[in-house]
């Protein structure tokens, strides 16, 4: 399973261009969904207004080098999900984030570089499976134990709402991908393989096609907001109080 390219099995029944076109369409769906989200919710206007207001309040102008450093700090924070204060939430997000990156990049490489090579001489199939497993573990952990309405608000773990559209479709997409891949690797009944492949495509389309309604775009917005906050703190325009100069902890 770790050395077999699942997409090569598809090329046996469909042309290689099918999955390549599908991947391009999904990328376009994410871009279009994010742009529509920005326009429809007025997020761009809101952030632009906030930027103007903070610039007017700024006590000093930041140089290009300083801004670059702040951008690097923001990326470093996002890379370790430093904004989370509790380790289970942080770890589950890291599993999902890095798993998703691995899964998406290896999917694109397999689809475009090895469309009909069932056993490519590379670690890509292993990385694809590993990425999907990481997303599945992090996602299920988050879904059943860490979702805030489940952990704190008393909802059932099976209670789903619109806020679950992203994590739900993500979990179902990778789960169906793994099931389909396992069936292909085990050379199961061809009809069953095609059915699971159809389910995989359905949930993947839901994941990438519902950006407007789901939390998908938070992956792009969160680093942007984190950067803006760092800039505000650095140029003195932050609405937060100044950090205290005193330490009141007197004993441990």
């Amino acid at each position: 399973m770790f050395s077999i390219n699942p997409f090569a099995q598809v090329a046996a029944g469909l042309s290689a261009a099918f999955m390549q076109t599908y991947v391009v369409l999904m990328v376009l769906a994410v871009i279009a969904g994010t742009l529509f989200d920005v326009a429809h919710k007025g997020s761009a206007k809101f952030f632009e207004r906030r930027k103007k207001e903070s610039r007017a309040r700024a006590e000093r102008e930041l140089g290009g080098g300083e801004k670059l450093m702040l951008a690097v700090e923001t990326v470093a924070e996002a890379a370790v999900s430093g904004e989370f204060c509790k380790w289970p939430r942080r770890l589950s997000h890291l599993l999902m984030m890095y798993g998703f990156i691995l899964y998406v990049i290896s999917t694109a490489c397999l689809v475009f570089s090895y469309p009909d090579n069932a056993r490519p001489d590379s670690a890509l199939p292993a990385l694809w499976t590993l990425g999907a497993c990481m997303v599945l573990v992090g996602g299920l952990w988050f879904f059943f134990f860490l979702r805030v309405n489940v952990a704190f608000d008393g909802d059932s773990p099976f209670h789903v709402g619109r806020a679950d559209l992203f994590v739900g479709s993500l979990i179902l997409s990778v789960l169906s991908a793994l099931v389909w891949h396992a069936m292909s690797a085990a050379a199961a009944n061809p009809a069953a393989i095609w059915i699971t492949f159809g389910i995989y495509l359905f949930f993947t389309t839901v994941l990438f096609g519902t950006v407007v309604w789901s939390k998908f775009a938070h992956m792009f917005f969160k680093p942007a907001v984190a950067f803006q906050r760092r800039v505000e703190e650095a140029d003195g325009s932050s609405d937060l109080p100044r950090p205290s100069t005193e330490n009141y902890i007197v004993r441990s």
Partner: protein
Amino acid sequence: MPTYTDMTRCDGCGECVDICPSDIMHIDPVYRRSYNIEPNFCWECYSCVKACPQNAIDVRGYADFAPLGHKVRVLREPEKGVISWKIRYRDGRIKEFAFPIRTTPWGSIKAAGEYEKPDAAAFGTQMLAHEPTALHIDALPTLEQKTIPAKQAKA
């Protein structure tokens, strides 16, 4: 001064829901961000304000000290044991205050459930569960036992 959540800052971590003593901080079902479901019933303890790791919870000041257009923001500095408040008035004036919030490091106090289950015999003592360790003493002071002379006892 009831609290409210700035949704652009809220991360939906649930710390405020967990700590609110009157159970009025809840999670919005659509956006999964916290909100105060009943500001009129807010006890104004500001536990949520202090607990929020994203500084997302603001205070809606009363009109007599901070009329419309004001802003009250809070900064939590657990490593220093300080909560700082910043009030920006409508006319642009700013006032800042810093208060010590505790004398022990953040997270150093154990919740009741984290302590070992006490021995059944402890129910019979006069001491509280954490005494005398929490008082930083070896033993609680006791009353001196005096023997009463027989004559006084008879009288």
